[in-house]
């Protein structure tokens, strides 16, 4: 059995799955249930200064749904904890006492003044929690008050606040980043410069879930008006994976521990985050859709995968795929793939043909000897992977790499086997060598 235990910044947990700071970790009762269910840790719902914030009493959540009402994406306009600080801290202390083997992280969001942070940090530390997460991510509501993503969008503020926290707390500091920026490396570098022990990402993305066309109003809305929310859930996973990988491979932040967040729904999603550099993962939406019991399936799936591949510990997975993430200009332009349709698996829906014909390279024949039959025309196929992406049958269409010495029928070039990228390509006016 693979060892799923995690040691992140010295914070130990029996598995790398933490519940993210969000509604599921708002109260003792929820957190107790989560830890009883087997979650490795929780990042407590963000606490702030008293008096507590007030939430809308209309809808806070909405979902992007598939036809069978499977949740694809999710958004919320809930603010940070709307309960008194003291209540949260007392509960946090009780939970940590009851579950000493789990990671209990306090998430904090207070105004951007040194005094505010100086005041709250010792109180939080007294709970016995294992670490602090700085909420520089929430894009709705709190950002209008100069907190959350309003801080996360200004690298100088990130660095400044992180420095205060490192100064006034002995606990590990995790800086939670907002994706509502143009280049995630900047806030990550600022966090590191401020002394952060780790970053966690992504927080939610600015979003409007939909428009109610009957009422001609955005949905959800409160008394006829709505505000943008924070988007999360399965649909944001690719965005999050990229941002995690960007930080993992940036020479300035490489090695900075990362807690990966964003749409993790299955063990596979979690494994992908780990391989792109995340040391732990945080989950929220999947729990809000299915309840806490999914932790059993997440752990079991990850464990089975690791066993099947011979990974013995989480460490062995972390960052494993990071070296494969490159700038585009490093990709081998001499490497050629062509699509191949497995005729035994093909169900002849013809979608590959029509999308290739209409939107790509006219490289899939629709008939053979007058019969309905879908086959790649290698003389036109550019290897774009569109057909693979839209084929409804798993593994029916695959990509085949042309072998050295093989002729690319499209270009008339023989595969040389040498590596050459854009930096040296003759079409590149700025080619660095010839």
């Amino acid at each position, binding site marked *: 059995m693979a060892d799923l235990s995690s040691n992140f910044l010295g914070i130990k947990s029996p598995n790398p799955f933490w519940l993210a700071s969000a509604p599921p970790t708002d109260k003792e009762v929820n957190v107790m249930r989560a830890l009883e269910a087997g979650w490795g840790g929780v990042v407590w719902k963000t606490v702030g200064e008293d008096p507590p914030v007030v939430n809308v009493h209309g809808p806070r959540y909405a979902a992007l749904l*598939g*036809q*069978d009402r499977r949740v694809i994406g999710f958004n919320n306009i809930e603010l940070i904890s709307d309960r008194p600080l003291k209540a949260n801290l007392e509960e946090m202390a009780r939970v940590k006492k009851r579950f000493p083997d789990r990671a209990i992280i306090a998430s904090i969001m207070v105004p951007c003044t040194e005094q505010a942070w100086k005041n709250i940090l010792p109180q939080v530390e007294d709970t016995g929690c294992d670490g602090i997460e700085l909420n520089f991510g929430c894009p709705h509501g709190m950002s209008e008050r100069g907190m959350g993503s309003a801080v996360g969008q200004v690298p100088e503020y990130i660095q400044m606040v992180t420095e205060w926290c490192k100064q006034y707390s002995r606990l590990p500091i995790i800086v939670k980043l907002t994706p509502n920026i143009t280049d995630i490396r900047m806030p990550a570098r600022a966090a590191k410069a401020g002394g952060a022990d780790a970053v966690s990402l992504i927080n939610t993305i600015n979003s409007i879930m939909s428009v109610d066309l009957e009422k001609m109003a955005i949905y959800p809305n409160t008394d006829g008006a709505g505000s943008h929310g924070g988007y999360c859930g399965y649909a944001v996973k690719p965005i999050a994976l990229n941002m995690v990988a960007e930080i993992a491979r940036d020479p300035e932040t490489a090695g900075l521990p990362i807690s990966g967040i964003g749409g993790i729904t299955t063990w596979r999603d979690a494994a992908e985050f780990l391989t792109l550099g995340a040391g732990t993962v945080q989950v929220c939406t999947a729990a809000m859709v299915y309840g806490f019991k999914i932790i059993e399936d997440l752990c079991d799936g990850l464990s089975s995968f690791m066993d099947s591949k011979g990974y013995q510990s989480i460490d062995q997975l972390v960052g494993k795929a990071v070296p494969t993430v490159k700038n585009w200009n490093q990709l081998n332009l001499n490497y050629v793939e062509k699509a191949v349709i497995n005729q035994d698996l093909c*169900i*002849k*829906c*013809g*979608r590959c*043909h*029509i999308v290739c014909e209409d939107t790509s390279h006219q490289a899939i024949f*629709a008939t053979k000897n007058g019969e*309905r039959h879908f086959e790649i025309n290698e003389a036109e196929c550019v290897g774009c992977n569109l057909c693979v992406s839209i084929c*409804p*049958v798993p593994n029916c269409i695959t990509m085949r790499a042309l072998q050295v010495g093989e002729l690319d029928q499209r270009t008339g070039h023989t595969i040389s086997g040498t590596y050459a990228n854009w930096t040296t390509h003759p079409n590149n006016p700025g080619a660095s060598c010839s």
Partner: protein
Amino acid sequence: MLASLQNGICSARLDLATYQQNFADAHPPLNAIQAKIEAERCYYCFAAPCQTACPTGIDIPSFIARIAQDNPRGAAAKILEENILGGMCARVCPTEVLCEQACVRNTNEDKPVEIGLLQRFATDSFFSKPKPPLFKRTTDTGKKIAVVGSGPAGLSCAHRLACLGHQVTVFEAKPKLGGLNEYGLAAYKTPNKFAQQEIEWLLSIGGITVQTNTRLGKDVFFQDIVQNFDAVFLGLGLAGVNALGIHEPESVGLRNAVEFIADLRQAEDLSQLPVGRKVVVIGGGMTAIDAAVQSRKLGAEEVTIVYRRGQESMSASEYEQAWAKNNGVKIRHWAAPLELHTANGQLTGIRFAYTQLVDGRLTQLPESFQLEADMVLRAIGQTFDSSHSVEGLAMQGGKILTDAHGKTSLAKVWAGGDCRYGGKDLTVEGVQHGKLAAIDIDRVLRTA
């Protein structure tokens, strides 16, 4: 004695609730949630095989996509523009050998998209709120066209012609319009008088005058109609019934399956319909299945379909055969009727000769068996009724010969539906015949 065990032919074999249950919708419609989930299963194939398999060429992927996108009216429009009787076809089409057989999902998982049920969902949604109208007539052409017969082919032809601006007169021998939609088909496939609702809607296009109780060859005559109209469409169906080819003594209990079915479709009170305790249906097509299953549902204790060839030759689909068996009908193959037995003018049984193929020819063997029967229903095919006296028309195989558009050998005369040579005798095919003929008539009249 229990009414259900009464020998001979009698009514009220069951209690009222059982009749109601037996003749309720055989395949209940999908609800909105089921329809959406099922619609999502459609792959939106390129040059979709289901569309190719549909005799009326409905753009099935599009109508299903519209259901998935909360646009059932648009879905219905897509269906009805190709098949004006799409509501009835959704109920009675043998989809298992048409669109659903062609569905690519069969290859992957042996479970096609439920196209028939989705078509029903779309058309039901539309008929529950049919305003504003989907179809409008174009400018009146001043042309008058006769449509003889108001089955699927005639109705389809009449509607398309009316849309194209022509004045249509429909002649129908029976008191009600609809042909087999009204007088044929199993009652549990189209309950709640759907056929008449659909026809009422179809006629709402305007420009269609209806003359019921008007039989060709009796109340109106072919030559007169050809003379008095700019064009004529014959959708006469097959009103004759093949005899068994053995001596048929005058007896209570020997009936044509089509008449038995028609009585059932027209009955206001099913408990008044008499049925035998032991029923034998002779034939291998849909009429045989419909008659046999409905006999069971009326309370017959033993119902046997006897077909002279093997299972693979039956024109009823495997799905329909299974449906019959699930309803307690026994199907016997390789037997041909030999002799009917009667007592006091009442049928008592029937003897069959075993058959087999000898050198490719169906041959009766000397061995035979007997079935007790107080009712025997003939369902061995219908024939073109010569009393229509449609002189001058080229015929083939006892049916009217036409080109692909339905044009007959006579100027001004088109034909379609079951009376047209070379068809499969399907409702949906009749609709296509009527539609294509209307388009051709319009083309000819406009270029004349």
